[in-house]
């Protein structure tokens, strides 16, 4: 156990805990956009910025990636932090003016409008990389990744056309905080819409009740991964004995 101070509160935390986790355990609010317990921290959104003081030196760190240390003094809401967070949220607002999660955070941080020019008002992707992380770490497929540098950065499948690795599970759409990736089942087809492409996958029909209940590719993947009999997935969950 290490002892540290967050916003004047003396806190004990297990070694290997991040500042963000320690703060949240004690009901101290730090805004985040790219954190999800399902995947490892990544430090993309920078909203979780906090000020740490060590040996009388102050610096700003991303609390989702910074581990607790003995004697560390942490401030989660100084004037300097408010200024920088405000700037980040303004940039995010200009990038994704229609993203609900961004709007909510801006409201909570007291930012009403962005001083920056909106380039594409329909852009919903904040590049938090939750989708690529969940695909890699949880699903284990890495069907999508972040491509291109700098201002051209975006989520994409390889070559923008190769969806071989995608099993249509929809984890990316589920975890996306801003609905930049959408999932829709229409009849016998699952449609996954990403900012730059639209993917279609066949759904398996239950021979008993006729519902299209799961993507064929996902079932094949599960059968292979768990080494189970394909018979398990003959019927939909509702029709199984």
């Amino acid at each position, binding site marked *: 156990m290490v002892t540290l101070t967050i916003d004047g509160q003396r806190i004990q935390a297990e070694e290997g805990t991040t500042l963000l986790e320690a703060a949240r355990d004690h009901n101290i609010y730090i805004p985040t956009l790219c954190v999800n317990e399902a995947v490892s921290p990544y430090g993309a959104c920078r909203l979780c910025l906090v000020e740490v003081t060590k040996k009388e030196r102050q610096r700003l760190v991303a609390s989702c990636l910074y581990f607790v240390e003995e004697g560390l003094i942490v401030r989660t809401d100084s004037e300097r932090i408010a200024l920088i967070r405000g700037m980040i949220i303004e940039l995010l607002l200009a990038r994704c003016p229609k993203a609900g999660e961004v709007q909510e955070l801006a409201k909570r941080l007291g930012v009403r409008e962005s001083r920056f020019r909106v380039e594409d008002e329909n852009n919903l992707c904040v590049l938090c990389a939750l989708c*690529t992380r969940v695909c*890699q770490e949880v699903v284990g*497929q*890495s*069907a*999508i*990744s*972040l*491509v*291109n*540098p700098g201002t051209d950065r975006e989520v*994409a*499948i*390889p*070559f923008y056309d*190769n969806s*071989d*690795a995608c099993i249509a599970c929809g984890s990316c759409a589920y975890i996306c905080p801003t609905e930049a990736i959408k999932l829709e089942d229409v009849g016998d087809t699952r449609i996954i819409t990403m900012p730059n492409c639209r993917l279609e996958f066949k759904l398996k029909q239950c021979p008993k009740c006729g519902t299209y209940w799961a993507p064929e590719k996902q079932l094949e993947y599960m059968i292979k991964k768990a080494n189970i009999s394909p018979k398990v997935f003959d019927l939909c969950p509702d029709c199984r004995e």
Partner: protein
Amino acid sequence: MTTEVREIEDSVGAVLARYQRDEGFLVSILQDVQTKLNYLPREALLKVSQGMEVPLSRVYSVATFFKAFSLKPRGRHLLHVCMGTACHVRGAVRVLDRIEQELGIGSGETTRDLEYTLETVNCVGACALGPVVVVDGEYAGQMTSDKVKHLLESFD
């Protein structure tokens, strides 16, 4: 399988043979492949992904991230026109204009005969020589639009 694809796969195979199967070598491997093939064809990235057992999306992510990698065929000669501040004020724009005219391509493009690829860079660290054009790694300093034609001819 076409002979072209086989050639690409053989080249990649030869590069992979020199490396351990460690994702950390990905950039070095792609550099070697590009040195051999002059660019990174789709088949090469597929082969690297298979050979290294690294997801294709990861290979594609790395290949598109660095400006040094090109997914499109590049010319036999690489022209880098420096657009840094020092070169800029000394007329780099005019030099670039003239090169684009002479070659009939824009920045970032390759001539149809695959002889030249033209790119701009933001500073090559030789400001005293500006305007600078780097041709196949050779620095040509104090470039003027009048000297461009001579420069291009000297590399034929």
